[in-house]
């Protein structure tokens, strides 16, 4: 049963990712990306990472992609423009990065890979949410805190830009 589900989710993920870059309409591309995120959550579920799967849907599909869509709709982008020097440059850079990645993948795949030993399931713990919490607040505490400070700085910056710079008195509409 699990191999069938894996093939299904993996095929869905690859198909959606292809549609993201092949589709011309930015809104449709964003929607394919949402479906890709959801199928990735399915893959996490098959790995028994149910917390990660749900957070994947909440954060990526539910929050980040909605903001993406918001911006795309607000800017009213209809289609990619297909001419100009910018397009040529983007195409060159894209092919360059693609070639590098392809070479890298070939070099890596020449090794024989042995799957490492699986982590032992916790004693008497139902699910791995508690285990993730413990790890985040003990072994990975430093990266965790650094990430939160980074997000805080980004938030302060966003508020500052939203207000229009230092020392600007914000005006509340409707008053």
């Amino acid at each position, binding site marked *: 049963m699990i191999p069938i589900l894996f093939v299904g989710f993996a095929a869905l993920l690859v198909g959606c990712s292809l549609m993201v870059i092949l589709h011309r309409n930015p809104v449709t591309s964003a929607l394919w990306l949402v479906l890709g995120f959801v199928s990735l959550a399915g893959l996490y579920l098959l790995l028994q990472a149910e917390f990660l799967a749900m957070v994947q849907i909440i954060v990526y599909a539910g929050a980040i992609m*909605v903001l993406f869509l918001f911006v795309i709709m607000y800017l009213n982008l209809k289609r990619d423009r297909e001419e100009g020097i910018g397009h040529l440059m983007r195409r060159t850079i894209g092919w360059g990065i693609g070639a590098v990645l392809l070479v890298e993948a070939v070099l890596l795949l020449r090794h024989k890979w042995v799957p490492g030993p699986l982590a032992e399931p916790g004693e008497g713990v139902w699910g791995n949410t508690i285990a993730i919490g413990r790890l985040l607040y003990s072994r990975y505490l430093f990266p965790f805190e650094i990430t939160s400070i980074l997000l805080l700085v980004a938030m302060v910056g966003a508020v500052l830009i939203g207000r229009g710079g230092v020392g600007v008195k914000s005006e509340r*509409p409707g008053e």
Partner: protein
Amino acid sequence: MSQLAALWNHPDFQFVFWALVKIVIIMHAMLGAVSYAIYAERKIAGHMQARTGPNRVGPWGLFQPLADVGKLFLKEEFTPDGANKVIFHIAPALAVIPALVTFSVIPFGPTDPFQITNINVGLLLFLAMSSIAVYAITLGGWSSNNKYALLGGLRSSAQMISYELSMGISTIPILLMSGTMSLVDIVHAQAHGPLPFVPGWYVFTVPGFIAFSIFMITALAETNRAPFDLPEAESELVAGFHTEYSSMKWALFFLGEYAAVFAISSVAIVLFLGGWHGPFLPPNLQFLWFLAKLSALVFFFIWVRWTFPRFRYDQLMHLGWKVLLPISVLNLVATAIWVYVRNNR
């Protein structure tokens, strides 16, 4: 024949089969309940405005929902010329699906027949589904190729993202107090209160009460009910995101709104109001308590709608970001300290 019997007795098959049976029953019960919730809404609204509400079709107007559905089926399906056809057709379905999926983790009663599944991230599944629900309105509004609909869709995505935060944070104190994310275990944790005659429902604890108040306010905003119905504000945006929708596609949006009200009320009952717990009834009938609480909360939603006027847009954002979010974060910190002190005394 024996192979068929072996398949029938296989535990996986049994689980899937009975889960499907329960899903079919709950889905149809929900669709019936939703159509009669609309009848209830019209009746209650009528009496609140000193009218009688629908009373022509059947005794006391009881067949009104059937007549409405029949009428909606016979209406013309209309698609605007410049609409994005595919997304225009997908959006109404997206309005219904997340609310129905939420019911898969709601425990209606203590025994197995009343629970479809008991997964250990049930609460997260609810939050995930309520964050997916934004897409229906946003996409419906955008794909209609209509300025009013687009404005409604944009308002809805801004509103739902803002209130989702407070809603998510207001549920964390419950996790801290119960120590689990499975909705069934959260209900079990509310079985006994510290005193006799006082149920152990979380709404009777101080952090639980604050969290419950925030949860209900954000629930009104998440389901786009008045006073937070800015995405469909008819005095400013014609009909908002569903301006271009007609016939059953429009009905699906309506259905999705009421199904979301039922789903979010069920989650509120599970988290704060003790789920199926209540006196006098044997375990197999305790789902009646759940239904009683559900009716009370749905009545609350209707009551609020016909009592309060709609917010202005800046008031909505002010309430979400500057009032509800700080209160829910403070409540979370206070609960964390309280639970820590209680566990380390």
